[in-house]
């Protein structure tokens, strides 16, 4: 089980590549209520959220969910389909995935708020076309213990005997590879610009 494995550090600084095995969670429109049911949001810290990842789906499948299967323990790549992470803005969703061990996601498409939340945690979300994604998922299911290597700069995944072309827009790529995915420092560095913007906003100045 994952608890017996050495803890994997959370993302920090520049992220160039990610290596590890993959876990496949199939289906379109998998919402954040399914990734982390609302009862797990009753907390004032993100610690301990790993056990909530896909909690209801895992209960329903009684041990057969990919997150419960022995061969996927320790996986660091999550392979999904379309509109993954739709619904609620809860950052608890990517936090739960990250604390379970996921370090990057590859899918056909991602919901916007979820994508931004992942980026803010240093979890790259790369995309691939429908046919590529389907083939990649099939390959992963056939060889669940085979490690893969994801290289961000090339947006490519090496594994299962081939190179899989993925997409990662230039913006997120730069943020991840330079370590600027954590935006706080940049935002704070524009102190004068922030003051200037505020001073020019009518509603902040009596509508003058």
């Amino acid at each position: 089980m994952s608890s017996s494995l050495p803890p994997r550090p959370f993302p920090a600084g520049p992220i160039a590549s990610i290596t590890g095995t993959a876990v496949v969670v199939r289906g379109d429109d998998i919402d954040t209520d399914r990734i982390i049911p609302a009862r797990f949001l009753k907390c004032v810290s993100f610690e301990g959220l790993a056990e909530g990842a896909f909690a209801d789906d895992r209960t329903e499948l009684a041990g057969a969910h990919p997150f419960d299967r022995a061969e996927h323990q320790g996986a660091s790549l999550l392979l999904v389909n379309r509109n993954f992470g739709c619904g609620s803005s809860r950052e608890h969703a990517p936090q739960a995935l990250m604390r379970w061990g996921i370090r990057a996601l590859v899918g056909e498409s991602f919901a916007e708020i979820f994508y931004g939340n992942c980026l803010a945690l240093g979890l790259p979300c790369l995309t691939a076309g429908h046919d590529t994604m389907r083939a990649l998922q099939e390959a992963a299911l056939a060889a669940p213990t085979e490690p893969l290597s994801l290289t961000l700069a090339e947006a490519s995944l090496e594994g299962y005997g081939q190179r899989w072309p993925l997409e990662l827009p230039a913006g997120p790529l730069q943020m991840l590879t330079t370590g600027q995915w954590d935006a706080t420092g940049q935002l704070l560095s524009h102190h004068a610009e922030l003051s200037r913007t505020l001073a020019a906003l009518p509603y902040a100045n009596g509508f003058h």
Partner: protein
Amino acid sequence: MSAGTLYDKVWDRHRVAELPGGSTQLFIGLHLIHEVTSPQAFAALRDLGLGVRHPERTVATVDHIVPTTSQARPFADPLAEEMLATLERNCAEHAITLHGLGSGRQGIVHVIAPELGLTQPGMTVACGDSHTSTHGAFGAIAFGIGTSQVRDVLASQSLAMNKLKVRRILVEGRLQPGVFAKDLVLHIIRSLGVKGGVGYAYEFAGSCIEALSMEERMTLCNMAIEGGARCGYVNPDATTFAYIQGRPFAPEGEAWDRAVAWWSSLASGADAVFDDEVVFEAGTIAPTVTWGITPGQGIGVDESVPSLADTPVDERPLAEEAYRYMDLQPGMPIAGVPVDVCFIGSCTNGRLSDLQAAAAVARGRQVAPGLKAFVVPGSEQVAAAAEAEGLDAVFTAAGFEWREPGCSMCLAMNPDRLEGRQISASSSNRNFKGRQGSASGRTLLMSPAMVAAAAVTGRVSDVRELLALVPLQVPVG
């Protein structure tokens, strides 16, 4: 690329800087926080040794975890109590206004900010809640954010954002009697899909939208996110200004006149360019009900659960999953499906006009035997206004429970939840698997009037028949 739209104008006014990587630093005019998505953001500030840059631009309330039966402190649930106590401590420490329980101003964050006059046209509004799109009803650019972004707004009053494309959704004509903004938005999502809006802001325009009240516009924009659009908005007009005027945080005197002039200038111009446009005819829309597990799986109340053959190939796996989960068969009429629980409330449909519409159906009728029905006002102000006109008495006489304000069974973070396989008729916004607090619970989304109709008949019913707007369907044979 869009140009000259309200979205473009508001974006430009709030642009602070361009960031490496191509995103824009956007100033946030109004930041709303609540107990669920803020505690970790304050903790992160503490870890980083940072303060709150503009505490006067952040406003707090408590909504998600509050019980709706007794709101006496401490709450029976120690985790809920800890979350509220943490919010109170954080707000006190950083001099942030908290509209707490019993203040007369507490309620669902997306209900109270408009009713206090905090939400105004031309603002950027952010909140750690996806239904922040609600505030777009005022011609604000409003969107949900995650907790790391809540931290960023607290620290810098700004966010790193990427500009969206703008799709104009023109709705022409009038909604038929018994058809509401909820039906309109469920119809739009059914047509464009739950992914259709990804990458877009939705501008809702056209004669139907212009005729909507502010509360109806809020219902519409609230569910833009269910169609994948992170924000939706309506251009500000006389209806908007009349709603805002006189509210506690609205501008007054000469500032009011200047405000109206500025707000008016923000509306998308006649020469505005949109990335995409879609047209709907309001008069053809029926009361709409979801049958599946996404808000896009909706049908008119006079329709049947779609067959696999009538479902696009790439949506069939989800349809099959929905048949199984909902235990509804393709081809069966949605009208007549029995329900166990009826919930009226939420940031989508917990405002006074929603309760009035539901009460008009409930008045003089009785909740069906064995069915649980309850009404949760969206805020303390909504509750007071409803009680002043006797709506609470209408509901309780009909057998509904009249509760205290909060998010309640929309997401079931408080004690209000489905049990086991129960099926609800719900005026909320999400019918996801497990959404209403039971891992196998089922949700049918519909308007508050339709929920009331389900409550008094015990099954999904066409509210127009109860309101005598269309002849009763007499079964043949």
